[in-house]
């Protein structure tokens, strides 16, 4: 049964995109990744509008102190098992905003992160590669 569940999850991971204070550079690249030119959907990845339907939280931005609680709640509202992908240098470590008085310096300061994909702004190819590696690691765990 576990193999079947992993197979279903890996073949059709649904994602939720959340901007936790990014400059929008990474968000534009995430959207480009989902559009037909890069077509992330060929891996079964589908963008959802609610955390209740999402397996993976794709998060950009350094996490402002104002949005930290909201990010935590969205993470809590996702069903188990859930994974978080930090997209961009800011999401990984604070990036250009590191040290600012109003940011948390990375997603992992608030919620556990499954994969880090650095870049400023990040390239769509890198997002695809990062997600493919995350899905590959999920598959290997049950193999």
């Amino acid at each position: 049964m576990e193999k079947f569940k992993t197979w279903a999850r890996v073949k059709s991971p649904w994602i939720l995109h959340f901007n936790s204070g990014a400059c929008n550079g990474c968000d534009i690249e995430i959207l480009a990744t989902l559009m037909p030119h890069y077509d992330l959907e060929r891996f079964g990845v589908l963008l959802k509008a609610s955390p209740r339907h999402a397996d993976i939280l794709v998060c950009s931005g350094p996490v402002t102190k104002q949005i930290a609680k909201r990010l935590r709640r969205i993470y809590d509202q996702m069903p188990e098992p859930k994974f978080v992908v930090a997209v961009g240098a800011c999401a990984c470590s604070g990036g250009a905003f590191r040290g600012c008085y109003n940011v948390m310096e990375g997603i992992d300061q608030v919620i556990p992160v499954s994969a880090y994909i650095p870049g400023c702004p990040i390239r769509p190819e890198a997002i695809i590669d990062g997600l493919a590696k995350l899905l590959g690691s999920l598959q290997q765990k049950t193999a």
Partner: protein
Amino acid sequence: MDLSILLSPPVAFLICLALCAGIYGLGHLVEEKGVPVEGKYEPYACGESYKAEKLHFGYRKFYIAAIFFTIMHVAVLTIATVPGGAGAYRALIYLGTMAASISFIFMEFE
């Protein structure tokens, strides 16, 4: 044995209900049990606390439009079917009555 009873609406409904309950139960069996945390089952509002509000749908403006169109349709039908001849001027009286009715409606609702 007559199997056509399976296609009768009550039986088909019960079969579908049992099937749905089975799928729901299977989903419940295979789901990952998460840790209950605060806010997990609250309405999704982009991470914010959602303040419940009572909504009251108003049909007031709809009724104005609905009655207006009803009267206008009847008026158009009446005028279109008025017999010709010397008595046709009586349609003007009817139109006047219609105009007064519509005016009263708008006066009342405004």
